[in-house]
């Protein structure tokens, strides 16, 4: 479809709409169904550019508003993920989670005003007994509780549990605590460490050009089933262009179901498969000689390493011991992967897959994957793993510097953290932190007691060892929670502050991945804020800082600036640094900022990389310096199943759900209402378990915290899962009764995941410091 054709359509539609209007005016019958009016959204009174806030893919959107209500959302065709800026005529598409957000906006359970807990007892079975309070009261009480606590216990006794946010980061620094804990050790720190050590030297990792790949090998990566727009669209486009897709996964994921070959690998053994592939490719010299010679270091070290360690296909096949994974099959896939006829080939990897922090060897697997991608010349090349193209803009501190006087008044920040993150060497510079060790730190007051917390957008259900984390939150004297929903975190908090949802917000978002050149999205409010009292996080931080006596740190100190810092000012200054402005972005006909010069909108492959040598380092000098394995090395799981605990556990997500964010959305629930224990049919029947039976899934009490770890789920029996594996979707087991739709459905598999003591985390010596979410065995029995 050509763009002028599309315009023609819009024009002819306009005529038709006018004709309909005339017909109605002339007293002719109006359409039979009330909903027929919604059917044609193109005549909306307002089409608003925004970008999705469900996940970090930042998909560009166009929202249709009729009679003041959001009726439909479609993808922005000029965005790299929703559409294709080189070919916008194909239209824009987002994922089901984005489309369903219409129902989140109008969810009556959303937070409407500040709340205070009246029940002094905290816990899963303790209704907080919220009462409505004013913002003044909420800020006053929060400020005084935090100030008093810091005065008594020191600044490090306060904890920020939020995603990285410029306003929040400044408040934390002004308060003087090192404890900013994010979720990434349960998400992607393993891949990030490998990319930092081997390719980038620092910073954020990978993006994939799936669409242009001809051979795609996945290792627990369910890009289709998790339905993240860039992965789902990219894999589908690649398939339509004739790419071959091979999927290693203990569970027949949606990606595996659509693949040309599915191999049900033993959970935690992808590393053995990848090492054997490296063995084949380097010993048979199948690699891309030109790329390896010009852009990599350490091929000889790599060769002698895999040979001396004996990482042969036979070794791997023996170890993996799974149907279809013979030494010959590994050899065949390695040869196919390296075959010049199949280039570009690559191994997409993103967050919680085999190389995500699911296993204790996930960083090693991530190293092996980078190695394989580099061997076939697919790093930062079309059809390969590409590095991000972020627009370069000045940061918060550069634009709003703190005066020297004020800097001197700031407390010195201790190095030791409550989550042991400082033990991660150079990789701790990423502002992340560790969910897996946080409960240990808090409950054991190691290295010191923590008393207060500001928590935003995170749910205790997503922590490893969720029940232990609940105990840790209970131990704190005071928690303030910024949220859009009365979530399980609100349930455990003292003060709850309502935020608007992203569909009501103003802002901008640089396309942080999946972009072949820099783009910035505008976020316009789609409808006026539904709940008057909700406030954006930046505004909350500034107001709280004011109430705590830190207001001076949030004055607009930019050139010619006055008053307080605001998100709007920050965004405008950042855009001005690019030669644009907020005004220009808001009025952009594509809803995007893009480089003006067409030459800057071409993909230019990198010639140099961020490592000390400037090359991709098969032998990571950065890893070696910091006492980690410089080459990809075999490492077994933390725990194997045995007679008593005979199952592996694999965690995934349903396409229409995003972690714990979507379970109150009636459309997402219509698609997937409750999680279950997905088991192999023959194996379950041997155990006397039928489809739909209630079963207990129980983990051994391992690790530092001795407790029962047991959840009750309905069994779902299928063929497409290993007989020794149970698969569970995340996001269920909700106990906040204020979430009326999500409440009481299914169970939380996070109850079965182990947290870690600092000793154990140190002993694992993982540069990714991953939470190893599915490295323990479980047993299953009828309830």
């Amino acid at each position, binding site marked *: 479809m050509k763009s002028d054709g599309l315009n023609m359509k819009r024009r002819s539609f306009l005529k038709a709409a006018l004709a309909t209007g005339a017909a109605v005016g002339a007293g002719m019958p109006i359409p039979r169904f009330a909903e027929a009016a919604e059917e044609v959204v193109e005549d909306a009174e307002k089409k608003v550019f925004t970008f999705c806030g469900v996940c970090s893919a930042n998909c560009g959107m166009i929202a249709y508003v009729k009679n003041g209500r959001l009726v439909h959302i479609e993808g922005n065709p000029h965005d790299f993920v929703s559409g294709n800026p080189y070919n916008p005529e194909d239209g824009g598409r987002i994922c089901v989670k984005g489309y369903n957000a219409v129902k989140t906006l109008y969810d009556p359970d959303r937070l409407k005003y500040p709340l205070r807990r009246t029940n002094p007892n905290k816990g899963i079975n303790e209704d907080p007994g919220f009462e409505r309070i004013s913002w003044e009261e909420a800020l006053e009480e929060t400020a005084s509780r935090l100030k008093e606590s810091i005065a008594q216990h020191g600044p490090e006794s306060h904890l920020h549990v939020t995603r990285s946010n410029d306003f929040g980061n400044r408040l934390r620094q002004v308060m003087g605590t090192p404890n900013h804990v994010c979720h990434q050790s349960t998400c992607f720190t393993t891949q990030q460490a490998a990319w930092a050590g081997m390719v980038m030297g620092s910073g954020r990792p990978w993006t994939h050009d799936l669409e242009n790949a001809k051979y795609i090998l996945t290792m627990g990566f369910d890009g289709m089933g998790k339905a993240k727009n860039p992965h789902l*669209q990219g894999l589908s486009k690649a398939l*339509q262009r004739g790419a071959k897709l091979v999927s290693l996964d203990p569970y027949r994921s949606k990606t595996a179901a659509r693949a040309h070959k599915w191999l049900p690998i033993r959970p935690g053994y992808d590393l053995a498969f990848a090492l054997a592939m490296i063995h084949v490719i380097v010993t048979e010299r199948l690699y891309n000689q030109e790329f390896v010679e010009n852009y990599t270091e350490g091929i000889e070290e790599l060769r002698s390493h895999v040979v001396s360690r004996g990482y042969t296909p036979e070794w791997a096949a023996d170890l993996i011991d799974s149907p279809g994974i013979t030494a010959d099959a590994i050899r065949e896939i390695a040869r196919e992967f390296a075959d010049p006829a199949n280039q570009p080939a690559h191994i997409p990897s993103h967050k919680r897959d085999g190389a995500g922090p699911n296993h204790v060897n996930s960083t090693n697997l991530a190293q092996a994957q980078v190695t394989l991608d580099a061997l076939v010349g697919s790093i930062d090349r079309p059809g390969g793993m590409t590095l991000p193209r972020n627009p370069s803009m000045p940061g918060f501190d550069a634009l709003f510097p703190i005066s020297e006087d004020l800097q001197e008044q700031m407390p010195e920040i201790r190095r030791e953290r409550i989550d042991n993150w400082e033990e991660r060497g150079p990789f701790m510079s990423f502002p992340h932190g560790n969910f897996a060790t946080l409960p240990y730190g808090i409950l054991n007051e190691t290295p010191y007691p923590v008393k207060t917390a500001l928590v935003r957008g995170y749910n205790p259900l997503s922590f490893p060892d969720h029940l232990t984390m609940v105990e840790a939150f209970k131990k704190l004297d005071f928690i303030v929670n910024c949220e859009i929903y009365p979530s399980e975190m609100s349930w455990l908090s003292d003060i709850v502050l309502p935020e608007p949802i992203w569909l009501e917000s103003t802002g901008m978002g640089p396309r942080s991945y999946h972009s072949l050149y820099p783009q910035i999205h505008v976020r316009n409010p789609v409808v006026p804020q539904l709940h008057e009292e909700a406030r954006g996080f930046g505004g909350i931080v500034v107001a709280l800082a004011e109430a705590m006596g830190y207001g001076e740190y949030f004055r607009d100190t930019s050139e010619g600036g006055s008053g307080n810092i605001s998100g709007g000012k920050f965004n405008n200054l950042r855009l001005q640094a690019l030669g644009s402005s907020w005004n220009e972005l808001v009025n952009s006909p594509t809803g995007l900022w893009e480089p003006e010069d067409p030459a800057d909108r071409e993909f230019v492959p990198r010639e140099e990389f961020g490592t000390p040598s400037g090359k991709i380092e098969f032998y990571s000098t950065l890893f070696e310096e910091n006492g980690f394995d410089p080459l990809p090395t075999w490492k077994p799981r933390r725990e194997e199943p045995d007679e008593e605990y005979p199952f592996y556990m694999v965690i995934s997500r349903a396409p229409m759900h995003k972690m714990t964010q979507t379970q109150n959305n009636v459309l997402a629930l*219509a698609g997937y209402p409750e999680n279950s224990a997905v088991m192999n049919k023959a194996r379950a029947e041997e155990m006397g378990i039928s489809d739909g039976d209630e079963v207990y899934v129980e983990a051994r009490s391992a690790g530092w915290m001795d407790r029962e770890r047991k959840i009750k789920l309905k069994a779902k029996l299928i063929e497409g899962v290993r007989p020794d594996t149970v698969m569970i979707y995340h996001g269920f087991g909700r106990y906040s009764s204020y979430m009326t739709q999500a409440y009481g459905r299914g169970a939380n598999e996070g109850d079965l995941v182990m947290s870690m003591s600092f000793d154990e985390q140190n002993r694992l010596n993982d540069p990714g410091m991953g939470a190893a979410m599915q490295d323990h065995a479980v047993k299953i029995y009828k309830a």
Partner: protein
Amino acid sequence: MAIADHAMLVDQSLCINCDACTMVCKQIYSLTDDIYRTQIDTYEHGTYHESIEVFNKKACMHCREALCVITCPTGAMHKNDDDLTVFDERTCISCNYCVANCPYGVITFDRTKGIMEKCSLCDKRVENNLEPFCYTVCSPQAIKYGSRPAMIADGNARVQMLKAQGFEEANLYGVDEFGGLRVLLVLQYTPDKYNLPAETAVPMGSRVLKYLISPFGGIAALAAVGALIYNYASNKKGSA
């Protein structure tokens, strides 16, 4: 090109059952809980590592020779000017013949609204030169919409690609079934694996019935009796 020459192509080899189409449709058309105009069924065949999983995006196929239209005693279920199978609730007597006779099981009686709920291929949109929502929203772009010859050509090309990749049973479904379907399907495997009907021609009995009742078109006596019997039977079944 006349709208009657448009077709939809659903590539079931790319569908992953994400429910984007299902839920946008449900939201836009404000469908009653548990009622859908399109839904995706999952079928599993074979055992363990040799098993396959297929998805069938189910919705009205807009058969040229539509059994629901043929067996409707009042003309409520009818073909519009664009040859789409659409429904007029003003003449429907809730006899449920269409539900019972649809070979694809894609018509649902919504008791709360008292109407037959089915996909209209977004008839109001196509009348306005727009495309059906499931085409515009499908994240994996498994759905295409355009001229029927183009869709058949695209479908055949995809089938050839799948065959070359080892999916020997790949086929294009809907070119001839029930006089030709407005919705064509690319299948990786034989139609039975998607629970698609083996019999794809209008049975003689239905044609005879149509012949018998058509002279009395608009007279509801026979139909009302049928409706009573059907409702009695289905209520009985429901309470069992």
